[in-house]
């Protein structure tokens, strides 16, 4: 596909206001995500003929608050969406800069709607259809000529906030600059990963993904595998989503799946696999019966009390789901390298192994055959499956990792032997002596007859370390930049070509847990930065940090060495304070989980840059502890600060109450924006929608703070605290929860310690304390809790099982 404008400057697209047409599952959720991004949205659907005109949209908006996973980054975002209907409100389209159509998949309905709205659109508005299968060119034919350059397909995946992929599909008339602007905007403002798809039925991800589902069904029947066994085989063990095949179908909705298959049936008559584009008769019968998956509480699975039952396609009845992967097959899947793994899979006569080889073989075959017609290059196919279907690697990557030539010969042999689902021969390029499709120079494009590099839109320069595909050999953070200091826990480095004055501190521990080495490294790094750098950024791939290293704590506990624990906590607190009082600005770049100690470190930085998908919380109560790395102190300071802005500056308690409950219940934010509302981040902290741009923005932020002439804050003094009265008020809630059998005696004890820490100790209300007082308090309470058998049991249980213990 041509990208004529890529080397030129892209005119930035700024969208303040957008309309979404159709308040169905996708439309409402797309509206929600636009609202997350601060876009004002008008959400349209049909007018109700009686009473409440916007009943359909209002019902959809109410539904957004209940959906899981949450489409809204915070409930407050709902106020960015206005309800509207086609009868009364078309004039409201006039100032919408982007209009996304997401109504039912009927060409005639869409055409009729376009006729209706076209006169109301602004002369610069972009119109895009979220169709998942209809021809974009055919859709565009209904539009006035002047609008056609501003029309394209924009295909989101369900759930749109959480699935990164957006397929952008131009028509021959679409203005290239408009597409570039849209791609740039979707990337930075909505945080999406865009691929350009060709205008073929079901585009890229669904074309391959749905084929893969059909082929899994086909081979499951051939090898006589139960649906539960199919899921045991096709989930995370082979790098697919945890919901595997059948659970995914239940989530998607069996009727929706059947609809997509029918689209393939009617529109892909010349596809060599066409005879397989059919819903199995038993699945059709199930749909007929009204069992459509999650939305009807029954589908391929159903819940029977606490047990899960799976459908037996032969009898259309349910039985207990017990299917598992055979040990022999599991052993094969554990083999590295991939080449040997695949070789062993092909040799095995175990039906599960033969099934796995069969689904990979036909997937490879299908992708090779269709690459030229559905996508520009192999990278787009692999990225589409990664980001639209949650696969760990795309089909071409898997093939390449398993040894391109060997696999190609094996596939060809199976085709020749009549074992593959289609006898179409592999395209010639597959066996032209290549070792794969992804190379450092680019990915294979049969259409262009060469390897095409990654797109060079300026927006992609903001992603300093994009997720590379196997074979691309993109630079990784670990091997990039110049190392300034390193120990077992952290690496301090910099990117001289980006900003030589800013240090980047990355944790090296598993899940970025914070242990002795990380704390020591952090303190050294801050000292180094104060001497030699302008600013320090804490950044690494997600998670930001899952918390303090419980192993170290458990070991000290087991040894009964509570003085050592006290010293560990002091060290942690010193690191937190060092982040706050450093002579240079410190910026925490947070993505994914920032729990416990991770949250505390982030809270103490000068500023935070948060990826939208940040899950932040002080969850120590779960292991029977309270935050003691400065977390309680930071929240007590926050309460005093907020009270200071109120009419009664010494009435601190109202600003402690909410955070007390969040901490006592170990609440974790569902987004960056919610973390701000909960008090784990500040209102003026920056939220970044694309996690890949996080480092770029954090470096810019750190540079701006340094340029502004950073002065570390003066330690707060004379901090008013809620004291004894505050503790009593919080205790009142605890007494009711305890005697209402909602919490255990130990929960009450832990929460009371939390109350004491947040209220500044058993002092008179309105007493004034300093930071050291608060830190000492939380530290002593932490150590006291750690001495209790219940807390020790909780820690051991979490380390042993990975699950919290309620005791």
């Amino acid at each position, binding site marked *: 596909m041509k990208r004529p404008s890529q080397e030129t400057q892209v005119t930035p697209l700024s969208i303040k206001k957008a309309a979404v047409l159709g308040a169905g599952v996708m439309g409402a959720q797309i509206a929600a995500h636009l609202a997350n991004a601060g876009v004002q949205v008008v959400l349209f659907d049909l007018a109700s003929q009686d009473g409440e005109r916007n009943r359909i949209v209002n019902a959809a908006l109410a539904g957004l608050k209940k959906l899981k996973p949450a489409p809204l980054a915070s409930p407050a975002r709902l106020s960015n969406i206005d309800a509207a209907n086609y009868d009364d409100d078309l004039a409201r389209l006039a100032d919408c800069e982007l209009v996304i159509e997401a109504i039912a998949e009927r060409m005639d309905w869409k055409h009729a709607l376009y006729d209706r709205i076209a006169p109301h659109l602004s002369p610069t508005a972009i119109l895009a259809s979220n169709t998942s299968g209809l021809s974009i060119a055919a859709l565009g034919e209904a539009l006035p000529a002047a609008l056609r350059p501003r029309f394209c397909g924009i295909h989101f995946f369900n759930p749109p906030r959480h699935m990164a992929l957006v397929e952008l599909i131009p028509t021959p008339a679409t203005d290239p600059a408009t597409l570039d602007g849209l791609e740039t905007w979707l990337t930075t403002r909505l945080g999406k990963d865009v691929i350009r798809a060709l205008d073929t039925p079901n585009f890229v991800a669904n074309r391959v993904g749905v084929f893969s589902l059909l082929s899994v069904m086909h081979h499951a029947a051939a090898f006589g595998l139960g649906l539960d066994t199919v899921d045991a085989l096709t989930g995370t063990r082979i790098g697919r989503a945890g919901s595997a095949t059948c659970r995914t179908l239940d989530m998607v909705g069996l009727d929706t799946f059947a609809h997509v298959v029918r689209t393939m049936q009617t529109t892909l008559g010349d596809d060599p696999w066409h005879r397989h584009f059919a819903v199995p008769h038993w699945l059709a019968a199930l749909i007929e019966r009204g069992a459509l998956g999650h939305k009807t509480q029954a589908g391929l699975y159903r819940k029977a009390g606490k047990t899960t039952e799976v459908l037996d396609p032969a009898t259309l009845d349910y039985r207990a789901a017990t299917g598992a992967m055979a040990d022999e097959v599991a052993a094969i899947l554990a083999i590295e390298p991939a080449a040997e793994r695949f070789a062993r899979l092909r040799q095995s006569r175990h039906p599960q192994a033969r099934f796995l080889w069969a689904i990979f073989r036909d997937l490879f075959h299908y992708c090779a055959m269709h690459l030229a017609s559905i996508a520009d290059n192999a990278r787009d196919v692999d990225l589409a499956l990664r980001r639209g279907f949650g696969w760990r690697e795309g089909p071409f990557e898997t093939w390449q990792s398993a040894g391109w030539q060997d696999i190609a010969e094996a596939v060809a042999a199976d085709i020749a032997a009549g074992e593959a689902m289609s006898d179409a021969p592999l395209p010639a390029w597959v066996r032209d002596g290549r070792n794969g499709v992804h190379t450092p120079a680019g990915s294979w494009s049969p259409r262009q007859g060469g390897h095409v590099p990654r797109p060079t839109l300026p927006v992609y320069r903001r992603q300093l370390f994009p997720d590379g595909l196997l074979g691309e050999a993109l630079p990784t953070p670990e091997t990039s930049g110049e190392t300034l200091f390193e120990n077992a826990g952290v690496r301090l480095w910099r990117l001289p070509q980006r900003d030589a004055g800013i240090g980047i501190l990355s944790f090296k521990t598993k899940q970025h847990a914070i242990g002795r080495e990380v704390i020591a490294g952090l303190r050294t790094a801050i000292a180094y930065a104060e001497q030699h750098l302008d600013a320090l950024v804490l950044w690494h791939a997600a998670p930001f940090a899952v918390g303090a290293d419980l192993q170290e704590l458990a070991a000290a506990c087991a040894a009964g060495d509570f003085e050592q624990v006290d010293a560990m906590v002091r060290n942690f607190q010193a690191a937190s304070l060092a982040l706050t009082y450093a002579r240079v600005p410190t910026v925490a770049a947070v993505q994914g989980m920032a729990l416990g100690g991770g949250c505390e470190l982030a809270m103490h930085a000068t500023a935070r840059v948060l990826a939208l998908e940040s899950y932040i919380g002080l969850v120590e109560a779960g292991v029977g502890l309270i935050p003691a790395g400065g977390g309680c102190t930071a929240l007590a300071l926050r309460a005093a600060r907020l009270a200071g802005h109120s009419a009664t500056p010494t009435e601190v*308690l109202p600003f402690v109450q909410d955070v007390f409950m969040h901490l006592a219940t170990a609440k974790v934010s569902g987004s960056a924006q919610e973390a701000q509302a909960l008090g784990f981040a500040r209102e003026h902290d920056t939220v970044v929608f694309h996690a890949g741009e996080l480092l770029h923005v954090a470096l810019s932020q750190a540079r701006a703070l340094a340029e502004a002439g950073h002065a570390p804050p003066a330690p707060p003094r004379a901090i008013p605290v809620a004291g*004894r*009265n505050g503790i*009593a*008020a919080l*205790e009142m809630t605890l*007494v*009711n929860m305890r005697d*209402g059998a909602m919490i255990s005696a130990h929960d009450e004890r832990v929460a009371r310690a939390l109350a004491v820490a947040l209220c500044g100790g058993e002092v008179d209300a309105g007493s004034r304390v300093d930071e050291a007082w608060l830190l000492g308090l939380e530290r002593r309470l932490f150590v006291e809790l750690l001495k209790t058998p219940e807390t020790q049991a909780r820690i051991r249980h979490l380390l042993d099982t990975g699950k919290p213990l309620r005791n």
Partner: protein
Amino acid sequence: MNRQIQDAYIVAATRLPVGKKGGIFRSTRPDDLLAHALSAVVAQVPTLDPARIGDVIVGCAMPEAEQGMNVARIGALLAGLPDSVPAYTLNRFCASGLQAVADAARQIQMGLADVMVGAGVESMSVMPHMMGNKLSPNPAIFAHDAHRGIAYGMGLTAEKVAARWQIDRAAQDAFAVASHQKACAATAAGHFAAEISPFTVQQHQPDLASGEVARRERIVATDEGPRADASAERLARLRPVFHATGSVTAGNASQMSDGAAAVLLVSEKVLKEHNLTPLARFVSYAVAGVPPEIMGIGPIAAIPKALQQAGIAQHELDWIELNEAFAAQALAVQRDLDLDPHTINPLGGAIALGHPLGATGAIRTATVVHGLARTSGRYGMVSMCIGTGMGAAGIIERI
């Protein structure tokens, strides 16, 4: 024990409709509600010079913010009572309104006054926090387990009563449904008409389109709480709020509400001077303490005391207004004292009609006074449980 110097007679008793928290009275100030109740009760006895009122006593359970500043005096002045008429606010939580009527009666009974007003007011819309704007329990409460019950939310005390008196969920829900059914029937039959003084709500809303203040008036004449669609099936869907495995839900607890009522009492001397027809005689009033963690059984201790003071037997009561703080406690009281269910809350109770805390006692006094008149009953009683563990009961006799 009947050593009163003289009798106190109720010559007027009226109340406003009860609004739901956040409902019709959400933007109406409680001092305005009170002022209306006071001016309405005085207006019902036009021959009596308001300047003769010895004192206006007003019960209020959360006398702060909009209903702070001695709301009794503010209400009296806004009602247009002469400057010479004093007023004070008292607080006995949910019995405040009844306590105010009783205290007013006692002033007359002891010969200290000839004309008195007892009233009650509460807006839970403007005081959304059940425990006041600034919750600050004494830390000493938590130092001893003996005091733990002081910290209990009212719902948890109801759970304790439900457990100890073995009142199950179905019984509570059935009681709640009956309350709604009785209230709806009574409203439809017009049985509240005699006791209600309609109130005109004045709204001042910003009209964003015109930039003007849009003034609207709405006359409210009926209670907002009763639900014709209440059913056992609907109530069964609600989750217990106060105990993990409990039975007390929002559906079988009293509604949070806004309301006001006032009762005008006079001595026999004034009755004769003005040739007034009394509605009832205020007979007796008693309060009693019980453990705070089961505060809902307070009436079990208070009712026998009030009956004894009145010198009558329980079966002589024709009408009992037993405040339905929670179905659980109301049923426990009914069962423990063996009260005749047919005499209890014939027009429904707080589960349907609402419970504007400090106003309720005065409101239900108006209900009994007019109810006895309509049904020609003789003795009536108002009783309720009180937070932190008390009960109150007041008995009147139709004349």
